[in-house]
């Protein structure tokens, strides 16, 4: 709920020695191996890596839509391995925001309603408060004039703006974005990245995955994954190197 502000004593995300296995028939596939990671408030972090490297799996664990096979995943102070499905859902609702590669808006609802939807699930605000909050965000992402357009009537970039507004509407601790620009042309993709960066500067913590080097270049921090392992995790622009 509260925006990450001053001294980041406690990380929003804390992973230690996380393994994630998938069973494909008789074979067990190891998607993540011994992953440890911390995300502090205010970061603008990219998880980079080729397809199949485990980016989405990592994002899913942090996003509480999946649980680790081994190791500890702590999100917003809660050990996700110990939560019930209902609690995980509540955690997603209250602490996380999601931006999807394909925007994933509800087609039958207009932009305003899509953004409002998580607030309705939260049941914390009355209609007036919701309206104020939703319109604020739509203004912020620059599509207030399209508030009553349905996704089908919007361009890809506009849709992703709606999705960003939706992700932010609940004041999440962290916004997770899975390849947010993959379905956009480069100009629009850049605009979306600009927006995200602006929002980051205003205090929103972002964690997103990509395999686009251009996107990686704009990250504040890069976590590089190869075959389910983090290969490097220091400053910006690190080349692929030692284990």
């Amino acid at each position, binding site marked *: 709920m509260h925006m990450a502000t001053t001294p980041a004593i406690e990380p929003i995300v804390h992973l230690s020695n996380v393994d994630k296995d998938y069973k494909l028939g008789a074979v067990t596939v190891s998607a993540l191996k011994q992953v440890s990671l911390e995300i502090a408030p205010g970061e603008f972090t990219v998880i980079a890596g080729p*397809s*199949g490297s485990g*980016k*989405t799996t990592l*994002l*899913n664990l942090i*996003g509480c*839509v*999946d649980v680790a096979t081994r190791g500890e995943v702590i999100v917003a102070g809660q050990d996700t391995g110990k939560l019930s*499905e*209902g609690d995980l*859902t*509540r955690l*997603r*609702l*209250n602490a996380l*925001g*999601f931006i*999807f*590669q*394909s925007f*994933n*808006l*509800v*087609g*039958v*609802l207009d932009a305003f*309603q899509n953004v*409002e*939807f*998580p607030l*309705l*699930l*939260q049941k914390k605000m009355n209609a007036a408060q919701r309206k104020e909050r939703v319109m604020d965000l739509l203004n912020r992402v620059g599509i207030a004039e399209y508030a009553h357009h349905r996704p089908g009537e919007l361009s890809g970039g506009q849709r992703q703006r709606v999705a960003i507004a*939706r*992700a932010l509407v*609940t004041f999440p601790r962290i916004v997770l974005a*899975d*390849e947010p620009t*993959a379905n956009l042309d480069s100009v629009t993709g850049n605009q979306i990245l600009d927006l995200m960066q602006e929002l980051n500067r205003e205090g929103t913590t972002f964690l997103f*995955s990509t395999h686009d080097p251009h996107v990686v270049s704009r990250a504040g921090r890069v976590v590089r994954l190869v075959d389910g392992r983090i290969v490097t995790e220091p400053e910006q622009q690190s080349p692929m190197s030692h284990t």
Partner: protein
Amino acid sequence: MILIQIALRNLLTHKIKSAIVGGLLIFAAFLIIAGLSLISSIDKSMSKSIVNSVAGHIQLQEKGAKDELSIFGQMGSNEIGYIHNFAEIRKAIEAMPEVAAVVPMGIDSSIVFGGNVLDVKLEALRNAVKAGDQKQSAVIRRHVRRMVALLDDELKNLKGFSDQEKMSDDMKQGLLDVAEANQPKFWDSFDADPYAHLEFLENKIAKMAIGEDMLMLRYVGTDTERFRKVFDRFEMVDGQMIPPGQRGFLFNKFTYEEQVKHKTARRLDKIKDRLAEGAKVATDDEIKQWIKLNRTQYKEITFQLDDVATDEVKAALQAELQSKESDMAKLVDAFMDVSDANFQKRYDLFYKVIAPRIRLYSIRMGDTMTINGFSQSGYATTVNVKVYGTFRFHGLDRSTMAGAFNILDLMTYRDLLGYMTADKKAEIAKLQAQSGVKELKRDTAEAELFGEGGGEQVEDTTNATPTQAAAATPTDAPAEATPAAIAGNAPLSGAKLMAKELEGHVYSQEEIDGGVIRSAAIMLKPDFDVKTGMEKVSALIAAKKFALKPLDWRAASGLVGNFVGVIYAVLAFSIFIIFLVSLVIINNSLVMSTLERTREIGTMRAIGAQRSEILQMFMVEAVVMAGVFGAIGCTFGYALVAYFGHFGLLASNDFMIFLSGGPRFYPALPPWGLPVAMLAVLIVTLISTLYPAWLAMRITPLAAMQDSE
């Protein structure tokens, strides 16, 4: 709110799904509304038809009788039992605050011979001879002679077809007699000894005449006066009511027209009615059939016309047809070949010129009619009774079901039934006592006499009328004595005498109530329903220990009463089938649309929607679908019902008239129809949503991420 919006918009978005699901739900709702209206209206109007014409609200029959009472059931006698203490029963039941009246009844069918034209003509001839009217006598004689010639022809034709060897001696003799009467010398010698000739014609020839009307009449033997007062659908049409307490017969106008009326005239009436309904001669098969029969059955007219009448009719037909044809057969044929254009004119001409010269009804009001009954074990019983008039059951004038009931006074009915009064039984008991059989108690006499074990020698009585003393002649009674065996063989010869003697005799209420009846109708007061009535009456019967079984009108009316139950079952079954099919189809299409929405649902789950909220969304969608489509279907159904409720639905056949209680049927939606239809649609929709909803609940938030990586 948002869920309802999602639901509504989903309906609009998924057009194919909506069309399939919507179509089915609309149809189901429509069917329920229309079906329920139809059935409940039929039930209502039919109950009026049945209750207010013959059955009353409740019927009583003997407890333990072999057959259940079936008023509109099959013809012929059933072993429905006998009620002996009607007077006592009536007093007790009519004292109940719920009961308006109790009417005694016995329903049976018998054969009546309408009498043939030859008989009538011979009677006229005898009168003419007696009066010395030579001219009239000659006219009638020529007519009779022509009829005899025709009869001779027809019998000779018949002879050609049938096996001479197997023919009875009576029949052979009859053929010879007719041939003799067809000789010129028979007629030449008529004037020499008219009475001998008349006797020969009356005794030998008339019985050979074919084409005699044999009527199968169904009647209610009842306390006519009370029947008239209690059954408000009863109304007189022609003639007069049977005077209170007297013997007599009333024809149902329907039966009278249908069976007693001259066939050609009846067919013309039917054509007229049908044309009035808007049918056309050229396109209506039934009208064509009637016209064809009228043309080929010209003898129905020509046979009845003597030469004076023939000339008059011939002139009128020639004028109408503008023809010089002199052959009556051809003239009638041509005359009966009616079209839409000339029908009314010819119909009027028929009634103006032909009808007065023929016997329009084979039994007329005021006639004494002979009813030939069959008692339980097949003995013939015969009574003569005066026909007072015709009546109808209001609104059911054209129904064969209600129209089949004629009315007979109870005293005559008892004679015909061949059953004994209590006095008579006492007499038999006395006779038996004298002849050494053990004494019978009055109230157990019945069982002792007719029970299975009653193998004693039982005295036979020769007469079953209450007014004549029983001249008991001991004979060898059948070992297996039945009521009919004892009382059924009243001598045929006595009947005719009896009628004259009994006509005009006024019976007291005690006499009418005192004898045996088969069943009794209870009419409740308007404030009480049948269910309450049944409970109260049952309680009274139990308290008074009457040997009676009460039946509500539905049960008592036999098959017809169950008819509504049957169509309810048919409707329920077809709705069930439709629902089952709908269930499968709706389920399928919802599963499809759920799969299409996998990502959307996954996204909702990812951004924080609980499983229960997904379920809730599906349920809301189901309710919205049921509401929207159910309402549309109900509106259609209601519109249809309202339309026919206002304009009426023409009852296309007799049975429909009976069901609808009148010539037009006005369906109305029962107040509970709408909630029932909506509820049924809702239940079906919710059930069909269960599986798709369960599938949707199992969709994980991972589904939202599917297309990446």
